[in-house]
């Protein structure tokens, strides 16, 4: 890092502080990566694209189950196409959700001590809730 990085003054007179011992790499760390930095963004788009047909399918399927018994739901899930699409919907939805909620937390929670615990809690809850939904669909499909 060059000498000019030490301190500088804005037009309004406010000092800009830059750690003398901090390299450009040090400044960039934790702010995203040049190689994997787009992964999160891309995963949110891929799950969104998958959710377009899955959502339409799910709404129609759910509407046809309104007013029916648990046995009817089990019968519905016993069809492999329904079980497969249902499992896909659950996996993609919960993945999409935790990616999205992470960004919301990153945008609004500035205290480092709060941010990471909240993100981890969201990921843990999404994982468990998604897994419970998936296990339930599989149980309905295989065991009624």
């Amino acid at each position: 890092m060059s000498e000019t990085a030490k301190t500088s003054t804005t037009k309004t007179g406010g000092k800009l502080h830059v750690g003398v011992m901090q390299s450009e790499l040090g400044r960039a760390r934790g702010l995203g990566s040049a190689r994997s930095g787009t992964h999160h963004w891309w995963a949110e788009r891929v799950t969104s694209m998958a959710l377009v047909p899955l959502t339409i399918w799910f709404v129609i399927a759910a509407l046809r189950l309104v007013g029916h018994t648990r046995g009817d739901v089990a019968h519905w899930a016993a069809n492999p196409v329904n079980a497969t699409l249902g499992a896909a919907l659950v996996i993609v939805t919960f993945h999409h959700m935790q990616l999205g909620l992470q960004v919301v937390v990153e945008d609004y929670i500035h205290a480092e001590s709060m941010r990471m615990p909240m993100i981890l809690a969201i990921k843990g809850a999404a994982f468990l809730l998604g897994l419970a939904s998936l296990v339930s669909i599989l149980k309905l499909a295989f065991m009624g």
Partner: protein
Amino acid sequence: MTDTRDALTIARTSDGRLVRRPLSPHLQVYRPQITSILSIMHRMTGIALSAGTLLLAWWLVAAATSDSSYATVSGFMRSPIGLLFLLGWIASLWYHFCNGIRHLAWDAGFGFELPTVHASGWAVVAATAALTALTAIAVVMAL
């Protein structure tokens, strides 16, 4: 450099001087516009849908558990508060779905001209209203 915000706002000009990048005018000085309202609504419906996944998981787990636990979920969903939740979830889903497609079109590089942005925004509002009404009617008829 004290925090990440500095790291993001402090930059170097081409001749090597450190400058603070200009900040956009603050949100609160803007008049609400269709663009900004729809944008924040995408986030709000995303959060509402996230809360709604609790209902989805409850429904699936109950269906996999027993007739009586399924009856409890069904009972809740048919109660006035349950139906209100359901209506909110359906409206959120269709809004987020339609505006999500709008987002994907932008990501693919389409629809950035201001008149197009306004037109697609109103199209999302209209489609959400129509799909929500249609779905709500279908639910009521099936009850």
